């Protein structure tokens, strides 16, 4: 018996037990401002298996059941909650024009650098739904997780939580305006939200700001026009979104949330 080798094994084993137990704990350890992240054991053991690779083509998706949903056209004024990451900055300027012309109210919530993981872990979305009481939610999320490997496993739980938070409120999840191929965030959203709740922003071409990622305001306006057209024609919940030809005055009602310190 090699005593040192067994000592080494106990180090590995104790570390494993510690992180395994912590991943199942219903509390979080904090060191100052920093929350100690949990290992992914719990997520790994509890996440629902997903179809992978080529099988996806034949995999029955949530979107396959969309045809069964009844298309609703609502002509009344809406209370729209535009919530998500920094990509919605440009959208809200144009949405202001749509709201002005069509008589809707809207509120924007920008959580900088946010990801599905954040919205799926905290009650931010629920909080704004509870306080603002929207009749329609536009969620713009996914641009900060374009390159996450194995995203379908890692983020599935959070995407499901977000959709659960929407409850019965009609919504659209506006996919990220890709500047590079993503590792699966768009497919993940589509598979879970379904075609009637997903707007594929990645299919558009954008002019972008100097950072190479955010669409210019001009380009974001065209993006918003496309979303509005989608709401009028492809969404199962359709409402008045006549395209404005002029700009409406005033500042959008926006709440800005700072990034999480992870």
């Amino acid at each position, binding site marked *: 018996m090699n005593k*040192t080798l067994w000592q080494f094994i106990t180090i590995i084993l104790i*570390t*494993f037990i510690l992180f395994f137990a912590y991943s199942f704990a219903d509390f979080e350890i904090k060191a100052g401002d920093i929350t*100690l992240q949990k290992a992914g054991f719990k997520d790994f053991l*509890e996440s629902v298996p997903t179809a992978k690779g080529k099988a996806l*083509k034949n995999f029955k998706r949530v*979107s396959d059941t969309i045809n069964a949903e009844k298309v609703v056209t609502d002509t009344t004024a809406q209370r729209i909650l535009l919530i998500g990451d920094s990509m919605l900055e440009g959208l809200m300027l144009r949405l202001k024009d749509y709201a002005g012309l069509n008589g809707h109210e809207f509120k924007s919530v920008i959580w900088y650098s946010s990801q599905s993981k954040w919205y799926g872990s905290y009650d931010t979305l629920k909080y704004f739904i509870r306080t603002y009481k929207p009749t329609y939610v536009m969620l713009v999320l996914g641009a900060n997780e374009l390159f996450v490997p194995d995203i379908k496993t890692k983020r599935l739980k959070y995407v499901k939580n977000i959709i659960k938070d929407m409850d019965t409120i009609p919504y659209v999840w506006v996919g990220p305006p890709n*500047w*590079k191929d993503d590792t699966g965030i768009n497919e993940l959203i589509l598979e879970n939200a379904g075609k009637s709740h997903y707007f594929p922003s990645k299919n558009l071409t954008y002019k972008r700001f100097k*950072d190479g990622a955010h669409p210019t305001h001009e380009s974001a306006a065209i993006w918003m026009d496309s979303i509005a057209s989608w709401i009028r024609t492809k969404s199962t919940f359709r409402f008045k979104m006549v395209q404005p030809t002029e700009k409406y005055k005033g500042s959008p009602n926006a709440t800005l949330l700072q990034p999480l310190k992870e």
Partner: protein
Amino acid sequence: MDLFSARLRDIFLYDSTSPILFNSGTFFILFLFFITIYALIHKNRLSVSLFVIAFGYFFYYKSSGLYVILLALTAITDFSLALAIDKAKQRKNKKLFLVFGVVISLTVLGFFKYTNFILENLTNFVKYLGDFPAVVQFIKSLNGDVFKSFEEIAKNNFQLTDIFLPIGVSFFTFQSISYIIEVYRDKLPPTRNFIDYSFYITFFPQLVAGPIVKAKLFLPQITGKINIRKEEIWAGLWLIMTGLFKKAVIADYISQYNDFVFSAPQTYTGYENLMAILGYTLQIYCDFSGYSDMAIGLGKIMGFDLGINFNFPYKSLNITDFWRRWHISLSTWLRDYLYISMGGNRKGKWKTYRNLFLTMFFGGLWHGANWKFVIWGSAHGLALAIHKALKSVLDKIPDIFPVRFTAWFLTFAFVIILWIFFRATDIAENSSTFTLPNAANYTYISATTAQNDSTKTVQVYFFDGKTPKDTVTQIVAYAKADKIRVKSKINENGDLEVTVSTMINAYRVALIMMKKVVSETSIDYVIPFWTAHQTWMILMLIGFLMHANPTLWTEKIKEIYVRSPYIIKLITFVIVVQLVIQFKSADVQPFIYFQF
């Protein structure tokens, strides 16, 4: 039960989207089981050999799926050929077996790694020839049939784009070649035990990403009793921890900013480009040396010495010194089996320079089937030759601090500049997507471009199964573009989604970055950059400080750790794992050297 079996499948079955990495949770669990069984049986030579081989094959299966068969075939072929070389009495027969073995190994490597590269260049060459009717006529007069088939290739833009590159094929092929060459040179008796040879080829710590362990270093270690020494176990754990920190904390985190800049350098300032270039310089070192440290550490814990692979390469004072410190196992392999085989420095100075250049030319090509790697390798080869030529003059310069500093600076700057070319990829400038209903009706034929004043027109051809001639289905126009990329996929509705992108090629990307750094770097960006990217900057500083740390200190710290009490070792390991988890939540990048 479904969930449980799904998790078991995740652990034990191959998933092409997530090949196993040492810093993954899956490996952590598997290794815990592995090392426990290893500890129980390590004194029984046969049992431990069979167990480690089985785990090696399983590990490779988790990396490359059924290409594990390729690994087995490589082991069988080279084991048999080494015996044949040893048995052959005449030198020419020995040579015949050697050449046969090397050709087989290189053919396998070439097929998986270079087929598309060769076809792509052949296509471009024939297209280029088409611009010179006189040349076309001349070649046709020599052999019309050959040219006709080349023309077909060029016309159809033929590419075998779906050849899978089995992970680590470059590493185990080189190991295998080293073995038969050593046997041929009578420097190593062939092993007559297939289990021993399989153990060498499938030893999982170095199987998929090196170090490329030479047979003469490794085989003698597996014929005798496995000797696991106390100090080696703790030194191994130390290496695993430093490797984890370098790979999973520093490299993976800083890569995210680097990727943003390298994918759109024209949109960033000179200072931001400079930071990304320095970032990549640290990233590639931490990524690769970190993974090597983990491999070497795992080997030590199991009682095997895999040598060293990196020795603080950015401290080099000249380019020759750099290649003695960077990816040592590859550079010594190239020296022993390529440079020396070509004559080394034994046939006059000009042939020495030529050999240095060619060695690095092929060394560059080893890194990937792309001209940028060839250019990178060639530039290093040229620098090595120039350094060799000037060595007698340089040796006369006094060895004082200002000289040493200048030498270090020039070497570092040269290495960094070449990393830009190494890292830069073609980037999409503009993309346009269109959809063709019902994908099954269409077959992609080709995309052609036409230049009209300042506008480039792209015509994308699809065969719709009915019209006898190519059908122009879409025309997209762009201003300026180095090249066009057409990607198509079947979307969720069963339609064909085609994306046409104008691309800036990798060389221009590299040049854009350098131009930005030279002409647009301003000190005004230092504070805003620090404010915006504090964690990134702190990790950069830690990474470079770890590297700049005097070698003796590094050894001293390791010794202190090795001698520290058990509880300190446990706490340190827990802290490192927590750090990995903490930074992993900021998303992980795949291991850079898997692509090679």
